[in-house]
């Protein structure tokens, strides 16, 4: 019997947290959005989401096999990349867009850097950015698909509407914009159908400590603060344009965000500032995706300058 005893180094008990479980919670947190997409767009949504996930999983499997690495797709990280990429796509893109996107995301966004844990940029965003640069007409034309409820404002991202609307004069009308944004929004990309669902999902991740609230809160907080300073509509800035998806699900991706607590706050503030910079000073109404990619590049720098003070660092005389 003694020979069966397991001998290994401590700790002998584990918290039970695994990469697979963290991914599982993220899927769960995104489930409401996905279900709503399927309800709203039916086959379109199912097609985009499943093709993107399949492409991501297949790419990951092939590359891991080619690299002679253990096939770890079971942990769900590739599938999650596929799902998140799909959520950044408009509902009416042709079927090959999610296929190519899933491939680009995993190949260039993740495996080229060495796989999960080594990637610098958020893979889903890398995929989306490459799609956007390669096929700008497809990716942006669909961004201006009319809102069914709001024919007057012909834009998917009501942020563009904001530039048409003179502040103060149309406040009442704008409230018509918030409601769909909050509950059921048919414009924008798949991940923007309901701010409420995103907030719920984001809270699940934060409560389960899958993501760090510091990133999401400082990101959104900075946007609120800067919109206030710039005297633009705060609610629209928060609810519209993929900000919540970005703050809760993309910027907070642990692999591509700083590891220190204070670093995460700095990162969130950085993301929020870049978003507002783009929104206020460029004609481009979006900015969340590029802000996050931009800040991803600074992560190791932020980590370096926000190291926690070590215990007992004060040397005695």
């Amino acid at each position, binding site marked *: 019997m*003694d020979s069966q005893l397991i001998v290994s180094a401590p700790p002998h008990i584990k918290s039970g947290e695994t990469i697979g479980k963290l991914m599982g919670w993220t899927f769960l947190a995104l489930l409401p959005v996905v279900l709503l997409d399927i309800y709203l767009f039916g086959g379109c949504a199912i097609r985009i989401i499943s093709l993107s996930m399949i492409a991501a999983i297949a790419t990951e499997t092939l590359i891991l096999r080619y690299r002679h690495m253990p096939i770890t797709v079971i942990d769900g990280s590739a599938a999650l990349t596929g799902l998140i990429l799909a959520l950044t796509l408009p509902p009416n893109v042709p079927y090959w867009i999610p296929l190519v996107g899933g491939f680009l995301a995993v190949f260039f966004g993740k495996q080229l850097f060495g796989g999960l844990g080594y990637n610098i940029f958020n893979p889903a965003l890398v995929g989306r950015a490459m799609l956007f640069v390669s096929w700008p007409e497809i990716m942006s034309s669909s961004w201006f698909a009319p809102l069914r409820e709001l024919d007057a404002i012909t834009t998917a991202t009501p942020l563009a509407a904001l530039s048409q609307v003179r502040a103060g004069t149309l406040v009442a009308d704008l409230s018509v914009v918030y409601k769909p944004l909050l509950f059921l929004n048919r414009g924008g990309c798949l991940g923007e159908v309901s701010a409420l669902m995103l907030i719920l999902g984001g809270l699940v991740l934060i409560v389960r400590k899958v993501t760090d609230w510091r990133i999401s809160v400082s990101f959104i907080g900075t946007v609120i603060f800067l919109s206030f300073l710039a005297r633009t509509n705060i609610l629209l800035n928060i609810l519209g344009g993929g900000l919540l998806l970005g703050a809760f699900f993309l910027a907070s991706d642990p692999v591509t965000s700083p*590891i220190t607590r204070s670093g995460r706050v700095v990162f969130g503030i950085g993301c929020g500032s870049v978003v507002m910079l783009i929104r206020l000073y460029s004609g481009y109404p979006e900015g969340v995706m590029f802000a996050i990619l931009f800040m991803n590049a600074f992560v190791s720098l932020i980590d370096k300058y926000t190291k926690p003070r*070590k215990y007992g660092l004060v040397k005695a005389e």
Partner: protein
Amino acid sequence: MPAEVIIPLQQHIGAPCNPLVKVEERVLVGQKIGDSDSYVSAPVHSSVSGRVVAIEPRLIHTGDKVLSIVIASDEKQEVAPSHGLSDEEAMDSDKVRAVIRTAGLVGLGGAAFPTHVKLTPPKDKPISDVIINGCECEPYIAGDHRNMLENPEAIVDGLKIILRILGAKKGYIAIETNKIDAIRHINDLISSEENIKVVPLTAKYPQGAEKQLIQAVLCKEVPSGCIPCEVEALVQNVGTTIAISEAIRKGKPLIERVLSIAGDGVREPKNLRVKIGTPASHLIEECGGLKGNPGKIIFGGPMTGFALFDLNTPIVKGTSGIVILPKEMVPVSDPRACIRCGKCVQVCPIYIMPNFIGQYIEVGMIDNAEEASVMDCIECGLCGYVCPAQRPLIQLIRHAKAKITDNRRKGGK
């Protein structure tokens, strides 16, 4: 009562003892059977009366073979004569230290550092605060709680002895707030003492670690690479404090200790007072035997303890508990790349960054690990406990520490 005890000649940090008895010789309870001329060392005593059957290397919990004296008990428990110090003698610091050494006292919290050495701080570093550590060192382990309930007088007495020989000003007894009964008990006892106070602390691992305790009680941090006397503090475990009192008052050597037998792999988990040298298998039997298939038998706690190879491994002075985990509860580890979740950084009690350190060590960048303060790691095991990527952080850290120590010894730095 075990039929046979195995008493390793090195149960402490420092020089091993030489055997003072021969095979076939009869020994009594409390008889000194091993000692060393070395200053940093502590003698060992027989915990039973009986006959020495072997003096040979035996496997101990660390996985090493250590020269041990094996004694077959005759069940008579005849005690070797001993006597403590008179009150007057107990005022003499040197006499007290000598008795503590003769009694073979070492830190019972786990590290097993010889107590008389610890109670002799460098001349230029006076001790002003003495903290008695009543915080359990690890989850599952509860022996100190029992000590505090059963023997509070000895704790207060032992603390007073320590304060006297060190000339220290204040004594603190740190107890976790989930042991409210112990707090009350001891508070009653010290109501008339001006310089002793109970400090209730929230239960939190690794509060029982020396530097963390000093931080919690005195709000001081021990400088990196230094020992607590640098901040004029000294920490003693409650078990050791009781043993000090018993050695001084009654001349009782360290031949038994309180330990917890715990975990889901044992039928009736208990805190027991056991004889040093008792094989683990005997104690497990006393607790109703194993439940299910044992996966791991751990000496010490589940966070930092040693997994055993052999059930007959003897209890030594520093064994704070035996934790038995059934097979199902032993985590299967499937190490992956760090996903930078930051959990290890958030839990590290000394605020270093185990993720980066682990990555440096993996690729052989030992210097970078040293720069990132790997040597300050107290090996509490929390980083490995929380890591969702199942990274073997403690193994990596220990590897680097060994390498760095080696380099330093070779005269590199």
